[in-house]
């Protein structure tokens, strides 16, 4: 068995082994192996290529851009997605615009440990993909499975554009698989995680598992719900989403991020404008509550969608 976190580690090991241009830079990634052990032993296996960075997200990302200009393929580990904001400027104004302004590619990968776990609180729990998705020039990946954590990270390093790899902290040790995949869907294709016929739930990352659990519950009530795992936010595989809604006529977009705008709003906007006539009921969204992420598990437990709230939202949709 291999965990989601170990898959990330394995992908980084393979990237380092296969390409001398790859290096890893982040707080505590060296001898310590990373705050979540995502780079465990890599500093020893690849001396001089897995380096501890000072607490300077701006400089980490800025230096990655310079290194990329000169031909390297850096992987930057930001310790928590929440801490990417000090480096926000370098990501959205420098990395994302470099190719468009200068025709020089920027093949950097920034790993953002995202999402909440009970007790992590407002600044160790955020899902930032919607914020970054606003900016052109970025590729944003949100793996929900151990297999995708592995194969999409490898592809991220291979992509010549800046990639934000939004790995989910809750899935690190809670999600396990038999082994690493030998093949994978390419970045840009969504996956039908569960086939259905009565309604479509479109989601990504940890929420895929909540949606699957909710769909199991609905199955006992006679409804077959289709779950679409987006896998990547940018690009967003609208074709797969539309095809699913064509089959079911009902759409629920679920996300762990806050309700204003964001990924779920983007999904609904696309379906409403390009697939209006596929809808038998108004499209719905389910997001986190409109407050910072709470600390106490009681509050956290209801702050973002759970299998129960997803099931409830599905039922409402099915009974319209």
């Amino acid at each position, binding site marked *: 068995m291999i965990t989601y976190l170990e898959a990330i580690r394995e992908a980084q090991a393979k990237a380092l082994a296969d390409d001398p241009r790859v290096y890893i830079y982040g707080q505590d990634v060296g001898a310590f192996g990373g705050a979540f052990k995502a780079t465990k032993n890599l500093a020893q296996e690849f001396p001089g290529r897995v380096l501890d960075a000072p607490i*300077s997200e701006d400089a980490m990302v*800025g230096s*990655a851009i310079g290194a990329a*200009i000169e031909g390297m393929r850096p992987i930057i580990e930001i310790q928590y997605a929440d801490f990417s904001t000090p480096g926000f400027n370098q990501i959205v104004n*420098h990395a994302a*615009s470099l190719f468009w302004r200068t025709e020089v590619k920027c093949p950097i990968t920034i790993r953002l440990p995202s999402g909440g776990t009970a007790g992590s609180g407002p600044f160790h729990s955020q899902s930032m993909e919607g914020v970054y998705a606003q900016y052109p020039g970025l590729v944003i990946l949100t793996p929900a499975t151990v297999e995708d954590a592995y194969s999409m990270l490898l592809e991220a390093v291979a*992509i010549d554009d800046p990639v934000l790899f939004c790995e989910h902290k809750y899935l690190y040790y809670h999600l396990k698989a038999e082994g690493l995949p030998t093949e994978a869907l390419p970045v840009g294709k969504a996956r039908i995680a569960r086939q259905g016929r009565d309604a479509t739930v479109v989601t990504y990352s940890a929420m895929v598992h909540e949606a699957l659990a909710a769909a199991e519950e609905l199955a006992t009530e006679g409804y077959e719900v289709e779950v679409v795992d987006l896998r990547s936010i940018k*690009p967003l595989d609208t074709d797969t989403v539309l095809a699913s809604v064509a089959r079911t006529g009902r759409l629920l977009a679920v996300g762990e991020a806050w309700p204003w705008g964001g990924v779920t709003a983007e999904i609904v906007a696309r379906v409403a404008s390009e697939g209006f006539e596929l809808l038998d009921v108004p499209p719905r969204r389910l997001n986190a509550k409109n407050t910072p992420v709470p600390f106490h598990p009681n509050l956290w437990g209801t702050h973002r969608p759970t299998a129960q709230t997803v099931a409830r939202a599905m039922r409402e949709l099915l009974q319209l």
Partner: protein
Amino acid sequence: MPDTALRVSAHASAREPFTQAYRWMLLARLLEEKLASLYRGGKINGGVFVSKGQEALSASLGMSLKKGDIFAPLIRDQAGRLAFGENILDAVRTYLGSRLGPMRGRDGNVHRGRPTEGHYAMISHLGAMISAVCGGLMARRFQGITGTVGATCIGDGATSTGSFHEALNLAAIEKLPLVLIIANNQFAYSTPNTREFACENLVDRAIGYGVEGQTVNATELDACLDVVGSAVARARDSHGPQLVVANLLRLAGHGEHDDAGYIPNALKESAIGRDCLKVAECVLLEREWASAADLECWREATVEQVEDAVATVQREPAPDPNTENWCALSTAHLDDTFIH
């Protein structure tokens, strides 16, 4: 009247570099005067930012660097860019918005460069380019390439940014061959030094970062060539990051849209207010490295060079929105074409 009298300088340059630097300074000055004029003639969109007063410092840096080095110029580095090898057409094309320029109309004025040729293209957020240069130097190290220097120039205002701090700190930890020139021209737009930092002298920060630091009187080309040249040499010789704090006065507005009425006359008339170009001309004449006729001849030739470049570019096409691919990713198949 500014005191342009020659004083015996502690720095003595050789004739060739001094003369060459002066030619770059002259070209930068005349080019920028032309750009300012075009701006006031409605031919330039956005802003024009000139480096009047900073040419000696900038030319010295550009000349000290070698091909293969990395240079991230900022707003007032026209002389340095030219000295480091920028084609004058790149500058004119970017300002006039020609489709044939390096930025192809996607960015303008000083936001230009050719990154893979060592000329990094700045983003507007001050301080951000320093870490990019650091990264470029780290890459060289990973690649086993030695002897590279990375240089960038920033203003007194930018030293207040977090990105300046993080980048210099990172350069020091990584012991990178970075040359960071702080052009303290006394004002960040309209903000004087007293509202920008509280330490006595910016060079005092070098100790805090664990790097070597020097100051230079940037009104004197001799001093600039000496101090900047030695900083570059020390960086190249693995002495770690070099901080050079240059003192001068900005002799123009923040941009051509600004009349700099907030700069007190006393400052303009003090020693720091001297025009480095005029000072250099006096030195050339005094040392008989050039005659008045030479100066006039160089000036005429340079004016012609500038006029030619401008005339050429004015005939060139502007970007066409209908032929743009409007794609910000290099990996075309990952561009989400669903959104328009």
